[in-house]
């Protein structure tokens, strides 16, 4: 061996060892450089090869954050179908600014941490223009900050009050679906006047459920009613009978809203608990989204009321817009899939995807959106929107968008279970659902 010399590099020693099985450092660095270059080229080159044609040939990429697995899987399935139908309609009509709309879907597992990673992937890896589609409130709260950091417009379809509360950022908007605070506020008068003044609330123990707990309690007490018990159940729970003994004996109305894979078990066990002597019941259709109302054990729901974001069953006053929307998405008059009547849809929520995509189209066309540098202009264009009339683009009903709070307001529907179907009993006005602004995102910088 040569005498040790501090100037001896590993390269010398390595080349001496080239005959052995260990790769030399020089070789390792070369391979690393080659792989990195290859990876860099591969990730920036579109699949069909590099091209330098006109900007308008490139599609508009919308990153779709979808709950394919996890507790939101049932909603994710229908959000996916509605999104595909909306994109097909938009593309058939010429796309956005003459450009084709392309959906890049990623599963977030209904997990907040994974949600933030998906937003990052859409922004940095897929090069999406915007991100959209998140439903579950805890995932929105976990993902929206990342969207704000990456400065990518984030259109959520969530119902949570977190957008309008000022908790999030100027990049996060909810123009296609109403939020819980406005919904429960409009429900409180009906519950108090029609069903009873002493209410027991049963809700899932996370952000969305807490919105129900806080805002409905306030609304009921403002009406002169009283919430006698608040029962929080984890959305991952699978057995519910043990929670029901907490319902006070003097309850007049049960107010229930539940999410997660076990909602059918929840409603069934509630029926088993009450037997023949049930109080009045007012539920949010979330407790039965994607569940067939005719399931065994649900007979006790006859005569009870539900909030529905969009009535599942086609009503007597069905608009032509609803008819066309159902046909486009593939849903029959009972709210189930045309190809499988047992596959019931999440009809009260999925319209949010359809309407949001149409709002994105309107916003991009109003702002002359051409590339990611126009994202701020897109957001400003959407913030300038106000009234959205009832139309094929807005089949759930007319909307009033509040550009300052980034939240839309719309009609809420109350239906009653009659002979195994949900029949419309009451439609609120949009004004019934207003509450004072809590934030003005337009004063925030981009």
């Amino acid at each position, binding site marked *: 061996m040569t005498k040790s010399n501090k100037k001896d590099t590993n390269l010398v020693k390595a080349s001496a060892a080239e005959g052995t099985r260990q790769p030399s450092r020089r070789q390792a660095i070369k391979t690393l450089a080659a792989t990195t270059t290859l990876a860099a080229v591969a990730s920036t080159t579109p699949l069909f090869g590099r091209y330098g044609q006109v900007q308008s040939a490139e599609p508009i990429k919308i990153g779709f954050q979808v709950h394919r697995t996890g507790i939101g*899987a049932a909603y994710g399935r229908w959000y996916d179908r509605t999104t595909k139908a909306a994109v097909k309609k938009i593309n058939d009509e010429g796309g956005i600014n003459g450009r084709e709309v392309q959906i890049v879907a990623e599963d977030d597992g209904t997990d907040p941490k994974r949600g933030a990673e998906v937003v990052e992937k859409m922004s940095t890896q897929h090069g999406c223009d915007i991100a959209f589609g998140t439903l579950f409130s805890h995932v929105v709260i976990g993902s929206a900050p990342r969207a704000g950091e990456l400065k990518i417009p984030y259109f959520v379809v969530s119902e949570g009050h977190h957008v309008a509360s000022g908790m999030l950022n100027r990049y996060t908007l909810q123009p296609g679906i109403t939020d819980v605070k406005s919904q429960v506020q409009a429900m409180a008068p009906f519950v108090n006047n029609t069903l009873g003044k002493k209410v027991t609330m049963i809700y899932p123990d996370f952000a969305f459920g807490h919105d129900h707990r806080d805002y409905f309690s306030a609304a009921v007490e403002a009406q002169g009613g009283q919430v006698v018990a608040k029962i929080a159940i984890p959305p991952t729970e*699978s*057995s519910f009978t043990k929670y029901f003994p907490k319902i006070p004996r003097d309850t007049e109305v049960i107010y229930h809203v539940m999410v997660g894979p076990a909602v059918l078990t929840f409603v069934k066990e509630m029926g*088993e608990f009450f*037997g023949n002597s049930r109080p009045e019941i007012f539920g949010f259709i979330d407790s039965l989204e994607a569940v067939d109302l005719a*399931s*065994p054990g649900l007979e006790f729901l006859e005569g009870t009321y539900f909030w529905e974001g969009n009535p599942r069953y086609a009503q007597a006053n069905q608009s032509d817009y609803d008819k066309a929307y159902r046909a486009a998405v593939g849903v029959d008059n009972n709210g189930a899939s045309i190809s499988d009547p047992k596959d019931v849809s999440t009809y009260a929520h999925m319209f949010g995807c359809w309407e949001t995509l149409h709002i994105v189209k309107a916003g991009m066309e109003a702002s002359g959106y051409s590339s990611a540098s126009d994202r701020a202009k897109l957001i400003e264009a959407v913030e300038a929107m106000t009234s959205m009339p009832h139309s094929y683009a807005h089949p759930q009903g007319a909307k009033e968008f509040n550009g300052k709070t980034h939240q839309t307001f719309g009609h809420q529907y109350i239906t009653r279970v009659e002979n195994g179907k949900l029949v419309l009993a009451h439609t609120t006005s949009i004004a019934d659902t207003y509450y004072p602004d809590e934030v003005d995102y337009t004063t925030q910088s981009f």
Partner: protein
Amino acid sequence: MELVPYLILGLLEGLVTAAVLSLMALGLSLVFGVMRVVNVAHGEFFMVGAVLAWQIASLFDGHPAWGFLAALLVAPPLTACLAVAANQLVLKRIEYDPERTIVATIGLLYIIQQVTLMTYGPDARPVEAPFNHRLSIPLVEWTETGLGLYWPWGLGTTSYKLAVILAAVALLGGIWMLMTRTRFGLLMRATQLDRETAQAFAIPVGKVYAAVFGLGAGLAALAGVLIVPIQQAHYLMGHDPLLLSFIVVIIGGLGSLPGTVVAALLIGVSDGMISVFFSPTLAKIIATLGVAFVLIFMPQGLFGKRSL
């Protein structure tokens, strides 16, 4: 709700939990007792039993009892076959080494879970119970005319839940008979006592291991089939029962079958009672604290032998 109805409801719910838990924990305990290995994938066999039950029941159109009966007869043996295959392909090759088995069964857990996700999907699907009538439970009270019955609000159970409790008792009895009265039981107990001596007596230890692993998985699947009309079949449903089974097996004593049954009763009933009086989360906290207590002061469990 008043005190006595609370107690009764908690007891009934707890007994249902205990029934299903005892079957599942028994499977785990058997596997550990005879084979001396921990099967972390045990919860997934429970889930597979429930998912197969849905698959089989959905093939029948008429009265749900036929579909459920078919599921009860077919799903556990199918799951047992899956377990035996896993044993032959994986566990046998790592020679049942304790640490390697834990790692290997964790891998099995993920494989089974994800394959179920890829085929059955992420949704929870219900299976209709063969019969399900709500039974109001009356209490006795002192009225002007003497002793009378009254029906407290909310106090009830269903005929199916009672059937689950009875079925579990019958199945536990059957397992006891299997262990003590049959030749197969004799072989299992001999292998459990001393593996080398059993081999010296020409007991086919390899085959016994495979059969025991299959039996353990079959018991878990049976528990899954029994619970699926009450809950639903979902690909993540094996996670919570696995934790509870470990708690039960540790408290009861690894390898002790009576200990497992007693511990399952204890954990199940206390879970039901504490859930109804306080909260389900507190019940889980107490169960886990119980394990910690046992591990510190009585590491062999309630019924286990001192040195293992």
